[in-house]
């Protein structure tokens, strides 16, 4: 029993260990399946835990492996917790993770660092499970940092290309900024509550209540800064589009389905704290909505097939964060769940397309949508599943995305008109860029030799697509409007009442989505328009995501460089180096005088030592 709780973590770790030690000497297939079975085993263990949890009526399963830090008042243990919230996350992580592992066997075929890829991927799954199963903030943070590490390693996986390495570094640095907030938040939690255990902290919140409002605002603000880093919110979202430099399955698993949702998960986990701080919550909702709009609009003009999805991910994360800010945690988690399905599906579909474009002979960028077109005929299965995912993203009933997005919008409609408007516009944008992408990639005539000679991907890649497509089709069912299963399941943790279905709202947004899709069909049947659009001022503005990177360069980075120059020129060279050199010079001058004492005869030195000893003894015996 005890080991069962941590077994979802142990299986991927074991797989990692095997591949790390013997991966170089094993055949590709073996490496791939070892890694995949490790995650499948973790999934099976998660299912077993899930069943046990449902039989215990939401009573959480706990396990404390060992004490970790015991220093004064600080007591942190390697504690793990399986409650309805973490159980759902575990299923997503291991389930989607397993599919993507299998898909990767095909996608990474022939890569010289095949084994290393799977080592990282397994480590990621283990780390993500540590994150979601932690029973205190510090263990959560361990997972939080480990997934960040894996993300960094995998973004820069093809590090021979400087661009990829730079993208990895950017992700790392940007995430660290957020982490500073998170660490400060943790310290403040410890200062306030004297512990980092979730249970104790939340119990204290319930007891002490309103008296904590001020400090809770600060804590939640700091935690939210951490979340903006990991979950790619304004102002720290810039790393995620660049993170597409990594292999596409990584983008699907880490940068769409699991890791980037860690912020949302963390806010749901600590919702007790967040509910004490209405100001922070309002800010969170607004940040989420603005992020959604900015990223959603940026996705409208992207030409890279993965960049569209990347901005779309940022936008959808904005939805989740906004929902969390509105206090609609179930909606946020529901959207997280469905998004994991359909966005992983879209990424894997895009990966399939890239794989095909790459494999075919030709000399264009395999990710440039302007060079695609007409792939529907050549890759019918990928096309079918991609369309399912795309329509789910656009929010068409009865696909999964429709239900979850609707819940978010419903929550916004009830609480915060500004957020509602922003999210509404974003929803329209979403349908538009989805339509644009489908039309540009799959419809019309091939616009390059690569596209003309593309072939459907192997079964090992299309099979996960099929599974994810089925989940996307049926995923909405787990939380039908008006208090579905997920609501009921998360009730013991989140204590949230379900909102009734608003048929009018649903209808309006369905029509908006249909309209936007139609518009995309009309506009982009002729691919020329997509090409010209990018050239325009608005196009450039949106292509570079509202010039945020440039703004950073002009402000933060320039200031930082200036500061660095001052430090290096004035302080380092002028002050410290000068002092060090002066010390060196004076030592040298002294040495020139003293070198006479260095006769080179050992016995001479011995004599001096003996003399010294006698002087000391005389001092101690006679003088004192």
């Amino acid at each position, binding site marked *: 029993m005890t080991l069962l709780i941590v077994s979802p973590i142990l299986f991927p770790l074991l797989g990692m260990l095997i591949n790390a030690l013997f991966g170089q000497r094993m055949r590709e297939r073996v490496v791939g399946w070892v890694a995949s079975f490790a995650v499948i085993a973790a999934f099976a263990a998660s299912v077993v835990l899930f069943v046990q949890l449902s039989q215990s009526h939401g009573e959480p399963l706990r396990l404390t492996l060992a004490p970790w830090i015991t220093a004064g008042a600080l007591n942190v243990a390697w504690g793990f917790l399986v409650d309805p919230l973490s159980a759902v996350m575990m299923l997503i992580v291991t389930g989607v993770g397993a599919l993507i592992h299998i898909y990767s066997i095909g996608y990474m075929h022939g890569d010289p660092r095949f084994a290393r890829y799977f080592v990282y991927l397994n480590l990621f799954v283990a780390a993500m499970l540590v994150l979601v199963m932690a029973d205190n903030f510090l263990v959560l943070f361990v997972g939080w940092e480990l997934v960040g590490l894996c993300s960094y390693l995998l973004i820069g996986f093809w590090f021979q290309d400087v661009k990829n390495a730079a993208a990895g570094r950017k992700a790392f640095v940007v995430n660290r900024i957020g982490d500073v907030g998170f660490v400060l938040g943790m310290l403040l939690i410890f200062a306030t509550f004297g512990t980092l255990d979730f249970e104790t902290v939340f119990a204290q919140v319930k007891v002490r209540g309103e008296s904590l409002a001020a400090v809770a605002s600060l804590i939640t603000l700091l935690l939210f800064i951490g979340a903006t880093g990991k979950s790619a919110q304004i102002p720290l979202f810039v790393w995620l589009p660049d993170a597409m430099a990594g292999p596409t399955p990584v983008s699907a698993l880490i940068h769409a389905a699991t890791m980037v949702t860690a912020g949302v998960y963390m806010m749901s986990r600590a919702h007790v704290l967040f509910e004490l701080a209405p100001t922070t919550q309002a800010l969170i909702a607004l940040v989420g909505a603005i992020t959604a709009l900015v990223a959603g609009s940026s996705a409208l003009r992207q030409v890279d097939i993965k960049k569209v999805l990347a901005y779309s991910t940022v936008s959808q994360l904005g939805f989740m964060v906004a929902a969390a800010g509105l206090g609609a945690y179930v909606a946020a988690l529901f959207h997280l769940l469905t998004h994991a399905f359909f966005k992983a599906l879209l990424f894997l579909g895009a990966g399939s397309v890239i794989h095909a474009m790459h494999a075919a002979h030709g000399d264009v960028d395999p990710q440039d949508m302007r060079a695609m077109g007409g792939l529907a005929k050549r890759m019918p299965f990928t096309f079918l599943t991609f369309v399912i995912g795309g329509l789910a993203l656009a929010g068409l009933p009865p696909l999964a995305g429709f239900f979850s997005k609707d819940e978010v919008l419903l929550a916004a409609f009830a609480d915060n008109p500004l957020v509602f408007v922003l999210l509404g516009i974003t929803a329209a944008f979403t349908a538009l860029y989805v339509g644009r992408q489908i039309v540009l990639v799959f419809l019309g005539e091939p616009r390059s030799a690569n596209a003309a000679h593309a072939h459907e991907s192997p079964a090992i890649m299309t099979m996960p697509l099929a599974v994810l497509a089925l989940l996307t089709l049926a995923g909405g069912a787990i939380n039908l409007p008006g208090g579905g299963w997920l609501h009921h399941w998360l009730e013991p943790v989140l204590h949230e009442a379900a909102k009734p279905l608003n048929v009018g709202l649903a209808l309006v947004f369905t029509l908006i989505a249909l309209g936007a899709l139609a518009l995309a069909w009309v506009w982009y049947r002729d691919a020329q328009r997509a090409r010209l659009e990018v050239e325009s001022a608005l196009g450039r503005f949106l292509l570079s995501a509202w010039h945020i990177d440039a703004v950073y360069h002009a402000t933060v980075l320039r200031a930082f460089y200036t500061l660095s120059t001052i430090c290096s020129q004035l302080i380092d060279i002028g002050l410290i180096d000068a002092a060090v050199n002066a010390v060196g010079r004076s030592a040298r001058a002294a040495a020139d005088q003293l070198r006479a004492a260095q*006769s*080179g005869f050992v016995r001479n030195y011995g004599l001096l030592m*003996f003399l010294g000893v006698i002087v000391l003894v005389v001092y101690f015996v006679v003088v004192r």
Partner: protein
Amino acid sequence: MEPTSFVVFLSSVLFVIGALGVLLRRNALMIFMSIELMLNAANLAFVAFAQRWAQLAGQVFVFFVMTVAAAEVAVGLALIVTIFRTKRSTSVDELAQLRG
């Protein structure tokens, strides 16, 4: 005078003889042996004090000194052998290249 004082005095005499050996002899092996004599003199004092105060710690220290001496001899003799191979001599006065 009591036995402890006598043994401590004996120890200091041995120590001085060892020190003189280090300072007066030129053969590296002789110097090395004189150092061993000095260590032994210190050990003697330790044991005398251990006896005087009925504290086993003194004896344990001697044990450590002996172990360290064994390590020192192993490396030291290896050094002397190596030096002898190149210099054909065991005189420490020949090793004066590092003078200032």
